[in-house]
């Protein structure tokens, strides 16, 4: 007479554990901490793109009543940066300003109006230098170096050749080469950057609230910049309104706010506006790709030569990693053997780029899948057949650049989108415009694939610690508190960690509470980036739950006078065999607490050395991960041949996430990435006028609205990765890249026109059609 069964949610549709706070308005983001007595922080920014600083005169600002502190580059000579090899940025510019909008000084005042007035009184005297707003200009002979340690403005030059590329091209049946341009795009997450720094002058301690994906990195950089021992710093990450990679490194906002707070010996809140959030940037660099592919008649890729130039902006940031990803991630999706890659990361007088969702992979994938489509057409092959001709060997396998692949759901992804989109029956048969009777709308279908990592196997700050650590606290009340440093920024990481612990213990989610984002309370975590949390922290959560379960089983065995291996754990009931009436969870907890009082257990996870990438070229470790996600997409478009307006009618996307721990979240993440790819492909790009960012608002930086956005049907493919938590891999990034080429391939199918330059705006489509029409007229007239 016992119907108690372990509770279970893995694989279900589970709403976010912090959803009620978000829909009720109770969730507090950094700028929502409104407190009496807080000073208002404001940043004075350079109006010059490139200049030698002669003087920052703050004397008139300092005289203004209500101004409590002013900081300039003179207040901090330490550099910061996410990569230990490139900590060359200063919170406030010293000696030189290198982009228009770079922070030069900052003010803390009793209110915002006073702070604004103080900024007006700051005088910056400079000697202007030549400014370079394109990679080509910065690399031109005779250009002034932005940074002394980076000659010719090259942040990193990458070269590798694996296999015999020239010989393979010579043997190929078809060789094609094309160039592609992907403009700079910005995350434009909904929450603008904000920080609150509260300096405790009595104890020389500081507490910083920051809108970040990486509280631990912020902690490190605060220590470095303030010259304060890390033990004196507390970092709190409240609710965060999205990140998409722009918050995967410490930003100047939190560092400047901390400098102000210490100087004012007070609490300072800096909430920068949308324009400043755009200027803080850390988006995807403008990328020029030259791609040459050799193909055999059967569609197999014989050789690859890829040259990639990224306009990185004025500081290093993640730059070295971004240009390495662009090369290393040519691999691990198709079976490639003769690959040459040349990458250049260039320093320019524009805001610094960063690790935008799909870090380093997106623009090269756009080029690759576009050229595959062209070559398939030239060889009269179906685009699906070309992908299938190039599949990786069955896993486990290693690529030529030593990337470890243990699960590979791409074949199943291809099958799903091919079937669901009706590809075989519909492609080539959709209506085409032209002439009065047919109307102006041409429809087409396009497809493409992409992939991504589930966390970099080697963290940027290698300390020798486990890659992820989770703590569980169990106390007299029978509730379990999950303590994690993993930053939930809306992607649902807290939910998936709670689910993982509950699943192992067979408990309802309501037994478990999660605390994140306070360095005083939670264990250190490297943060939420490169899609690392589900895989790495998820495995640590499972480990912690297993450790707790072992303690509970031991306690139950003692109480029931049985051996531990005889104990059956049913979540709310522990028993020794089916006939035993057993102990309730609370009774087991009471017994377990007798030994030690409050129980805390730790769970750890470390990546395995085989996943760390190789040593065949400098930087070959970049790209190494425990598991790759895979995505295939079909996009259906309507192109209005009279106006150039492209409408996406529907997207079918299949994503191999190993195992969907939370189907609701996986669908939401995949839809969100596809849609973000759509923004980049169709409307988003930053623009500068002589170095001044002129798209620093959401009207000129055109984010798709609900009116522009198509239905996105998601197929979840589960390849069950042998190392993944319950078999899971990442779900939030890998589907972004495939949208871009799937769109342009669909436009090519609809119109015969190939767009190698993004975004595919109506005016660009219109101009291309006009050009073609003029060409036809000229030809027919001749």
């Amino acid at each position, binding site marked *: 007479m016992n119907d108690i069964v372990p509770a279970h949610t893995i694989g279900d549709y589970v709403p976010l554990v912090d959803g009620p706070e978000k*829909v009720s308005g109770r969730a507090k983001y950094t*700028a929502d901490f409104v407190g009496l007595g807080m000073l208002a922080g404001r940043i004075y920014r350079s109006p010059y793109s490139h200049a030698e600083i002669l003087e920052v005169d703050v004397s008139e600002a300092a005289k203004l009543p209500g101004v409590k502190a002013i900081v300039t580059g003179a207040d901090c000579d330490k550099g910061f940066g996410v990569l230990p090899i490139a900590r060359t940025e200063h919170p406030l510019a010293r000696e030189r300003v290198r982009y228009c909008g770079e922070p030069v000084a900052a003010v803390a005042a009793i209110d915002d109006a006073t702070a604004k007035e103080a900024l007006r009184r700051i005088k910056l005297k400079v000697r202007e230098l030549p400014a370079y707003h394109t990679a080509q200009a910065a690399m031109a002979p005779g250009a002034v170096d932005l940074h002394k340690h980076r000659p010719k403005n090259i942040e990193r030059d990458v070269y590798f050749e694996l296999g015999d590329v020239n010989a393979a091209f010579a043997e190929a049946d078809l060789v094609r080469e094309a160039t592609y341009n992907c403009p700079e795009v910005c995350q434009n997450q909904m929450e603008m950057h904000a920080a609150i720094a509260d300096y405790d002058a009595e104890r020389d301690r500081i507490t910083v609230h920051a809108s970040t994906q990486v509280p631990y990195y912020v902690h490190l950089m605060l220590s470095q910049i303030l010259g304060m021992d890390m033990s004196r710093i507390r970092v709190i990450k409240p609710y965060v*309104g999205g990140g998409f990679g722009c918050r995967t490194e410490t930003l100047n906002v939190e560092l400047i706010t901390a400098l102000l707070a210490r100087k004012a010996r007070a609490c300072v809140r800096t909430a920068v506006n949308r324009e400043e959030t755009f200027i803080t940037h850390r988006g995807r660099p403008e990328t020029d790709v030259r791609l040459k592919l050799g193909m055999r008649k059967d569609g197999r890729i014989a050789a690859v030569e890829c040259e990639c130039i990224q306009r990185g902006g004025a500081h290093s940031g993640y730059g070295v990693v971004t240009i390495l990803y662009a090369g290393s991630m040519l691999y691990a999706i198709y079976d490639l053997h003769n690959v040459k890659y040349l990458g250049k990361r260039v320093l320019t007088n524009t805001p610094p780029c960063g690790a935008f969702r799909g870090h380093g992979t997106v623009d090269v994938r756009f080029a690759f899948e576009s050229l595959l489509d062209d070559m398939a057409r030239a060889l009269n092959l179906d685009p699906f057949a070309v992908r299938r001709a190039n599949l990786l060997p069955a896993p486990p396998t290693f690529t030529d650049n030593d990337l470890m692949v243990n699960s590979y759901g791409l074949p199943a992804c291809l099958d799903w989108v091919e079937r669901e989109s009706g590809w075989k029956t519909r492609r080539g048969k959709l209506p085409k415009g032209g002439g009065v009777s047919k109307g102006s709308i041409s429809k087409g279908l396009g497809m493409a694939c992409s992939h991504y990592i589930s966390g970099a196997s080697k963290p940027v700050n290698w300390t020798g610690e486990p890659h992820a650590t989770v703590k569980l606290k169990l106390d007299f009340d029978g509730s379990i508190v999950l303590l994690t440093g993993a930053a939930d920024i809306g992607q649902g990481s807290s939910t998936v960690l709670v689910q993982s612990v509950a699943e192992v213990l067979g408990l309802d989610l309501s037994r478990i509470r999660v605390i994140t984002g306070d360095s005083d309370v939670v264990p250190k975590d490297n943060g939420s980036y490169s899609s690392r949390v589900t895989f790495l922290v998820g495995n640590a959560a499972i480990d912690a739950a297993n450790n707790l379960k072992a303690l509970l089983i031991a306690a139950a065995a003692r109480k029931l006078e049985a051996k531990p291996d005889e104990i059956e754990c049913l979540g709310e009931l522990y028993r020794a065999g089916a006939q035993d009436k057993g102990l309730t969870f609370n009774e087991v907890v009471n017994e377990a607490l007798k030994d030690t009082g409050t129980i805390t257990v730790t769970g750890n996870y470390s990546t395995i050395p085989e996943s760390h990438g190789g040593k065949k070229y400098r930087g070959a470790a970049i790209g190494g991960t425990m598991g790759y996600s895979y995505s295939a997409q079909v996009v259906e478009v309507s192109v209005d041949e009279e106006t150039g307006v492209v409408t996406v009618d529907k997207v079918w996307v299949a994503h191999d996430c190993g195992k969907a721990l939370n189907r609701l979240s996986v669908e939401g993440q995949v839809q969100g990435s596809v849609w973000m790819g759509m923004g980049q492909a169709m409307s988003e790009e930053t623009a500068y006028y002589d170095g001044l960012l002129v798209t620093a608002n959401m009207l000129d930086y055109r984010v798709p609205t609900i009116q522009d956005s198509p239905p996105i049907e998601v197929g979840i493919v589960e390849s069950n990765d042998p190392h993944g938590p319950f078999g899971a891999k990442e779900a939030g990034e890998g589907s972004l890249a495939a949208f871009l080429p799937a769109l342009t391939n669909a436009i090519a199918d609809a119109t015969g026109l190939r767009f190698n330059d993004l975004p595919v705006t109506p005016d660009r489509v219109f101009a291309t059609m006009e050009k073609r029409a003029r060409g036809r007229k000229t030809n027919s007239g001749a």
Partner: protein
Amino acid sequence: MARILQLTLNGRARSDAISENILLLDYLREFVGLTGTKTGCDGGECGACTVLINDEPRLACLTLAATVEGRRVDTVESLMSDGGLSAVQRGFHEKLGSQCGYCTPGFIMASAGLLRRNPHPTEDEIREALGSNICRCTGYVKIIEAVKYAAALHAVGVSP
């Protein structure tokens, strides 16, 4: 210049001394302390600050507080009834219409306004009503599902 503002905020009458030029957004967030209404842009671009003024969705960042004299202003904090989530709130929570949550109060108030004037909206009407709100996480697919679900809940008696 200061003035006395009288309004009904989230169902309660209030009188506050405010400056003439304070925006409704700043009045709500900084003065009253209702921080559910979010600031997402530099004015009129994103919809995150959408509130209802006499049941009509309006942008608090483009509204002077002085102009709501004598009116009803409802923010996201007003929607819960008996401590439970409203139909729109349940829709956004249960269907994952909210990921990071930052645009959510604006979307929820625009959706609540829609359901108050049109309890059975079509998908096109939902798209039109939410056309000036930007979300960067969801791709809007689940937002549309959330509003459809909310309309269904509303139809069986859950307040919007």
